[in-house]
């Protein structure tokens, strides 16, 4: 043990031996954004056709291209999940027992929705067939190694959105699995997601009761446009605070392409988007529609009404305004009591624990945020609603 590693003393050692029992808990907690990963490329071998297995063996797991930025924590995950920054984080990112202990156990999470963090690397590959093979293998690995081992884990499928027909095939192949609750889609994309080429994907989602979960990543990588329309920022902090623009671009596309008119039961979940921007976006979208309605006459209602009906946001990373009153106003303006869902982002460095997040919300909203809105949003979680 290196001298600067924490050592336990006295009764703390005994504390470490105690099972990480959740605090007395009556609340159901649904975590909408948890990121699992592979320990090694070999994990995928059993699930790949031989030619793709050969390629993976020869070239290794794809990495997010040149612009990926230096994240916080150790290699992007919570520093208390590793012994030191030198330890390779792959094992922790893939550790079923670590997720059970630090998330399900220590935080009392009852349902954790897994969104594979290698998705961005897989779906920014230009080679359509190899990309689709990796997505399929990753999903099969997730079912075999997570969903089948603990039914508190659910997942959103990794699908190659840049080739919608392959995405549909994957949804049709695995979308009926009881633990599959959505598709996981990254914001980096050659095209905005409301555009008609994606309609077949949403039709398949609706048919299988899956939500579309959108999460930043992959902007500027592979075939995707730069991470901001004005250019490439230098530092991770910039990308962190500029994320809302990716979601805004896709949201305006969903609204004005009429996606929610075409798919009245479709639900789109924005993960890790922040949410304080939502009120301003709603107002501006409504203004634009009132003035320009005749250009998109298939948009029948105020954009803000579609947002209320179809779009949900997640809590992490929590907005931290200067006062609780300011947060209260944002929540009111965005109808947060009906639109916000808890997310931890475990095991990533900007993780939020449910107990502290709940404290940020008015008492009357907490149950909705911790579980109620997710139960209503994810069709395949409806059955979990407690009396």
């Amino acid at each position, binding site marked *: 043990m290196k001298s600067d590693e*924490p050592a336990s003393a006295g009764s*703390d050692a005994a*504390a470490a031996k105690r099972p990480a029992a959740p605090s007395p808990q009556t609340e159901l907690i649904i975590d909408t954004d948890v990121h699992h990963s592979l320990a090694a490329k070999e994990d995928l071998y059993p699930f790949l056709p031989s030619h793709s297995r050969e390629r993976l063996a020869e070239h290794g797991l794809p990495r997010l291209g040149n612009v990926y930025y230096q994240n916080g924590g150790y290699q992007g995950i919570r*520093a*208390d999940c590793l012994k030191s920054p030198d330890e390779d984080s792959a094992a922790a990112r893939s550790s079923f027992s670590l997720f059970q202990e630090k998330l399900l156990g220590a935080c009392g999470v009852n349902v954790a929705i897994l969104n594979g963090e290698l998705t961005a690397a897989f779906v920014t590959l230009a080679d359509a067939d190899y990309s689709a093979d990796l997505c399929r293998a990753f999903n099969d690995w997730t079912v075999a190694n997570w969903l089948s081992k603990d039914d508190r884990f659910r997942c959103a499928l990794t699908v190659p959105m840049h080739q919608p027909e392959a995405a549909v095939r994957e949804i049709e192949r695995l979308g009926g699995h009881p633990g599959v609750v959505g598709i996981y889609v990254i914001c980096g994309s050659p095209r905005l997601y409301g555009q008609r080429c994606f309609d077949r994907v949403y039709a398949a989602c609706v048919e299988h009761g899956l939500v579309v979960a959108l999460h930043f990543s992959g902007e500027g990588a592979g075939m995707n446009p730069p991470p901001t329309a004005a250019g490439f920022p230098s530092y991770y902090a910039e990308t962190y605070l500029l994320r809302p623009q990716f979601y805004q671009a896709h949201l305006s596309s969903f609204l004005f392409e009429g996606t929610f008119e075409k798919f009245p039961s479709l639900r789109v979940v924005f993960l890790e988007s922040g949410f304080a921007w939502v009120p301003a976006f709603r107002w501006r979208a409504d203004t634009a529609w009132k003035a320009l309605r005749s250009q998109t006459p298939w948009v029948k209602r105020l954009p803000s009404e579609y947002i209320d009906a179809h779009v949900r946001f997640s809590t992490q990373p929590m907005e931290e305004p200067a006062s609780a009153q300011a947060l209260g106003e944002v929540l009111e303006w965005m109808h947060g009591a009906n639109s916000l869902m808890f997310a931890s982002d475990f095991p990533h460095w900007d993780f939020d624990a449910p107990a502290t997040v709940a404290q940020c919300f008015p008492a009357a909203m907490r149950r909705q945020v911790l579980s109620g809105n997710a139960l209503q949003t994810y069709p395949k979680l409806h059955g979990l609603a407690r009396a």
Partner: protein
Amino acid sequence: MASPALEPFPVCRTAELPPGSRRIAELRGISIGVFNLAGQYFALRNRCPHRSAPLCEGRLMGLVKADQAYAYTTEREGEILRCPWHGWEFDIRTGRSVALPETIRSKCYQTSVERSEPEGRVDTYPVSQREDMVVVWLPKPASTERARDRPGDP
């Protein structure tokens, strides 16, 4: 160090806490990190004032500064503790936030868990050496004290 308001808790032998090292101990249900900075001892509550991470498990760093853009310098190696969750930095000598040292309000122990003042400081405790033991001094218990610290609890 003896004070009617403080109570001593031996943590370990001095040999077990060499310079540059730390130990985390649970004293009267409170998780506390004890640090040896070049022979001087400091004790901080193992609970980040931001969102209750186990702060004292964080990395020990230097104080990274730049008097002008891009001119990085690092001083005071090993004296800054970075929270293992969202990376807030704290000065081990004072318990104060590095980013916002001036906004600190000194808070009494019982109110330090209030969420309404997330910035600021971590509770610190006096540490002394008694013969070959490292001893942390805690305020005598208040009735409102929580039974046990758990990461992430508000």
